[in-house]
């Protein structure tokens, strides 16, 4: 085992564990357990809000997968990745104050609570709970596998022990600490992601002999690497632009991101978070993907994209510093997993159990339920990650785009369009997710755009058409 690299990584895990544990003390003093456990009592400040949004959103793909593709594709992929700067300001500006105020009015703790009050429909609740549980559970398991693989490759531990270390360090603080522990550890993890990116970018530019030399080397190998079109000219402007929907504006529809837009303390926190979020997310995305491109002349011939990040860090940095920098992808994975775990748990406890199974449950029962469901889910994911079933891998493919297509219009138009109604919401969720799965299977990247574009368009049309059509007879206009 390479102790010099492994030690900082293990120290990082311990530190996160302690911080999560420490911030869980607040749970006992809060006035409403549910609000506290699943939403941090709506008390997040600007910095933590910005960090938890970025950290939840930035996952293994921003730190491992993305740079790996950039290594192959060149600057064109960095261009594509920069569409994600939008997430830093757009989500909070669009959901913004309206969502925060409405959520407080409805006393909503989860995204589904909000939809339930807005549409007043059992079907909306069941459909949303089902899609959150199914899609995010599989997304979580996939990230879990990624986290264990990363520990495995860096420390030389077996996959099983790596998975165990990873699972144990995440589970404990999520189960006992709830949302606040998740948000606070996210803030630390976000800071590590930010600093790790900067250190590695500077080191890699130095190792490559300066930007001019690196770009010259790239263009000597293949001039396409420094064009916006990818190494073989395959990245068309249409295709690259369509990512503005998938990883830019569409992120508004991701439940794990949207729920954070109801967790902040006041308008001031939101304003700060918008500015901090834009700076941090832009720097991470630009830096991380440039690292992938700049790694190419320094370490040519890496076959597997996922290995680019770990290999280049160990190449250009002293081992102990590489360990610290490699805590960044680890942090990205952990901060995504912990949020998903809590969200799936809230869908089960709050949205299904308390709404339909036992509406009169006592505070003590709810407490016990929340802890045990979260813990059970964690253990279940652990078991799944031991040898992921094919179904799970298949479902994970849809988790990002499928959820966006399901939720974006019921949430956004639910907020801003009074005539949108439950029939429109249910129809658009089915049309969105259903057509996403169909397109993905039979006609991926339709019309040269990312697969997510058409389903999002379909679900918009369905939402509007069905709402208008059924709205004539019911004549109900929501007070929004």
């Amino acid at each position: 085992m390479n102790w010099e690299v492994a030690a900082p990584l293990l120290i990082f895990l311990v530190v996160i564990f302690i911080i999560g544990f420490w911030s869980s003390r607040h749970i006992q003093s809060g006035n409403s357990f549910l609000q506290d456990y699943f939403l941090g009592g709506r008390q997040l400040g600007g910095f933590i809000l910005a960090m938890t949004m970025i950290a939840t959103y930035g996952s293994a793909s921003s730190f491992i997968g993305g740079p790996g593709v950039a290594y192959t594709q060149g600057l064109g992929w960095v261009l594509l990745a920069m569409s994600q700067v939008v997430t830093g300001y757009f989500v909070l500006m669009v959901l913004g104050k309206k969502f925060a105020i409405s959520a407080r009015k409805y006393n909503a703790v989860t995204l589904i609570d909000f939809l339930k009050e807005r549409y007043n429909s059992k079907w909306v609740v069941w459909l949303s709970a089902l899609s959150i549980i199914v899609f995010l559970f599989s997304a979580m398991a996939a990230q879990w596998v990624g986290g264990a693989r990363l520990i495995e490759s860096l420390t030389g531990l077996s996959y099983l022990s790596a998975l165990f270390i990873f699972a144990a360090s995440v589970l404990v603080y999520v189960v006992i600490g709830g949302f606040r522990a998740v948000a606070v550890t996210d803030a630390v993890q976000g800071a590590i992601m930010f600093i790790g990116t900067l250190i590695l970018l500077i080191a890699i530019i130095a190792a490559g002999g300066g930007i001019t030399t690196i770009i010259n080397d790239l263009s000597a190998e293949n001039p396409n690497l420094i064009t916006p079109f990818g190494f073989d000219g395959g990245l068309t402007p249409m295709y690259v632009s369509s990512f503005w929907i998938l990883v830019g504006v569409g992120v508004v529809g991701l439940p794990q991101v949207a729920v954070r837009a109801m967790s902040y303390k006041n308008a001031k926190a939101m304003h700060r978070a918008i500015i901090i979020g834009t700076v941090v997310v832009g720097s991470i995305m630009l830096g991380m993907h440039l690292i992938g491109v700049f790694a190419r002349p320094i370490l040519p011939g890496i076959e597997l994209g996922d290995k680019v990040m770990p290999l280049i860090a160990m190449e250009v940095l002293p081992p102990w510093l590489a360990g610290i920098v490699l805590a960044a992808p680890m942090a990205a994975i952990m901060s995504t997993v912990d949020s998903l775990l809590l969200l799936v748990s809230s869908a089960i406890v709050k949205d299904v159990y308390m709404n339909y199974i036992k509406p009169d449950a006592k505070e003590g029962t709810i407490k016990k339920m929340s802890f045990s469901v979260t813990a059970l889910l964690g253990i279940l994911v652990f078991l799944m990650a031991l040898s992921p079933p094919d179904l799970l891998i298949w479902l994970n493919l849809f988790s990002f785009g499928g959820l966006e297509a399901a939720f974006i219009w019921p949430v956004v138009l639910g907020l801003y369009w009074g005539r949108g109604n439950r029939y429109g919401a249910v129809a658009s969720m089915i049309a969105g997710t259903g057509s996403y799965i169909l397109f993905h299977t039979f006609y991926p990247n339709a019309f040269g755009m990312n697969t997510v574009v058409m389903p999002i368009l379909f679900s918009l049309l369905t939402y509007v058409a069905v709402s208008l059509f059924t709205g004539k007879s019911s004549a109900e206009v929501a007070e929004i």
Partner: protein
Amino acid sequence: MKVHKKDPRFKIAEKEAWIGIGLVLFNFIWWYGFAYGMGSGPAEEYTYIFGLPAWFFYSCVVGFLIMVVLVAIAVKFFFKEVPFEDQQEGGDSE
């Protein structure tokens, strides 16, 4: 609440949402314009700024910095602070 009167805070929220959409459109046009406007020619004819191809420098580096400035201006000067709790419900100390 029977009289349908729009919460004045929602007017502010709606204005801010439109600002968000405006910023995204500007961001996209800047990003797209420089990337494909300057980057579509043959790579041999590229000009370079700080070692980076000019299209990339303007589209991704300057584009990002400009967005940070615009977002900060929008938030500082056009976003309003409003209370989130409902006043009429009162009595809530938190």
